[in-house]
């Protein structure tokens, strides 16, 4: 079988300190994105488990799969969960969710939990779009901007390049720094044009690393341009799959002259986590606690 360079590592985590049976409020968030899907379970607002897998061709099925994975080996089952919120582009396709909430709202809320209340600007670099969000200290959105018109600066674009250059996706960031000198960014950020430009550079004898460097800085530049409109206020955090690509992250930081906060958990779960936090708040509202 041919090696699938684009294949990124899926993940799954369960807390060893919490027993869900002691929980009063069990809430869940499921984020069905174009490329990846995540599920997060919270027990009384504390992170209990999560899973992050590739989205299949069928959204409801992918939603069920990540949810099952997040509950795997915990003895927890769907009927024990009091409230589930669906988010992501496939949010209306989460059959067991009681409510759908946009990724914008969920990412802000999730990032606020993951990075703490000092986070003001969030850049979410997802599978097929890029969002820039400002939020207040409670994680409430105060300003947002979205780019879903093209795949530049997204996970899908990275997958295309991993395959083109035969470089495993996790190694792309590191390799993009193995150049003597930073090359000019590729001139087009559109994935399709950038790809043919890259093919041309390879033919001209450029090393993979150099092509990667040129592509990563073009992506970084493109995202910084998007951020210009809403301005970056500290603290700054990057969520989504590309947050794991240091080749892009470090170049964004260099251009902005601001360092992004370090994540303690998988950066791809921010949306699902926000969903689960909203779910908790919605149960409390239902129970008259708020």
């Amino acid at each position, binding site marked *: 079988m041919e090696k699938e360079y684009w294949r990124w590592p899926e993940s799954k985590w369960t807390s060893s300190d919490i027993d869900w049976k002691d929980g009063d409020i069990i809430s869940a968030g499921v984020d069905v994105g174009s490329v990846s899907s995540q599920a997060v379970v919270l027990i009384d607002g504390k992170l209990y488990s999560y899973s992050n897998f590739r989205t299949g061709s069928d959204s409801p099925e992918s939603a069920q799969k990540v949810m099952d994975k997040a509950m795997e080996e915990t003895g927890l089952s769907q009927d024990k969960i009091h409230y589930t919120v669906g988010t992501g582009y496939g949010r209306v396709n989460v059959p067991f969710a009681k*409510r759908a909430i946009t990724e914008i709202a969920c990412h802000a809320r999730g990032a606020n939990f993951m990075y703490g209340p000092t986070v003001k600007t969030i850049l979410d670099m997802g599978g097929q779009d890029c969002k820039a969000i400002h939020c207040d200290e409670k994680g409430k*959105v105060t300003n947002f901007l979205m780019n879903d018109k093209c795949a530049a600066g997204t996970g899908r674009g990275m997958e295309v390049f991993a395959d083109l250059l035969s470089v495993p996706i996790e190694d792309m960031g590191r390799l993009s720094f193995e150049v003597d000198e930073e090359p000019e960014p590729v001139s087009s950020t559109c994935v399709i044009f950038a790809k043919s430009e890259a093919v041309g550079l390879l033919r001209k004898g450029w090393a993979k690393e150099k092509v990667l460097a040129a592509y990563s800085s073009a992506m970084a530049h493109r995202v910084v341009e998007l951020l210009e409109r809403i301005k970056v206020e500290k603290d700054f955090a990057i969520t989504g799959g590309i947050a794991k690509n240091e080749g892009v992250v470090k170049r964004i930081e260099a251009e902005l002259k601001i360092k992004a906060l370090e994540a303690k958990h998988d950066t791809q779960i921010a949306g699902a986590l926000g969903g689960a936090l909203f779910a908790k708040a919605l149960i409390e509202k239902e129970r008259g606690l708020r």
Partner: protein
Amino acid sequence: MLAHYGYKDGSGEYFIIIDTDKCDGCEECVTACPVGVFEVGEDENDPFREEPVAKVSEDHRKKIKYSCAPCKPVSGRKSLPCMNSCDPDAISHSW
């Protein structure tokens, strides 16, 4: 919340910005816009907001440049019908 609808591409920036804190959901913009860019409904980005809010409809978000062409400065209009219709000044744009 400042909701930016639209995008930036090689030819420029095309955003309609709605200040949802100012918007009272009166729907004046919905009737004022000649091409039906706006709709008023649930605030998708703030699940706890009870009052309806204006937004750019899904259909227009990715083609604002073309949707709003009749109101571009080149077409000789001084101010935009949507902005004029909005008493609380909740609407702005990027061109």
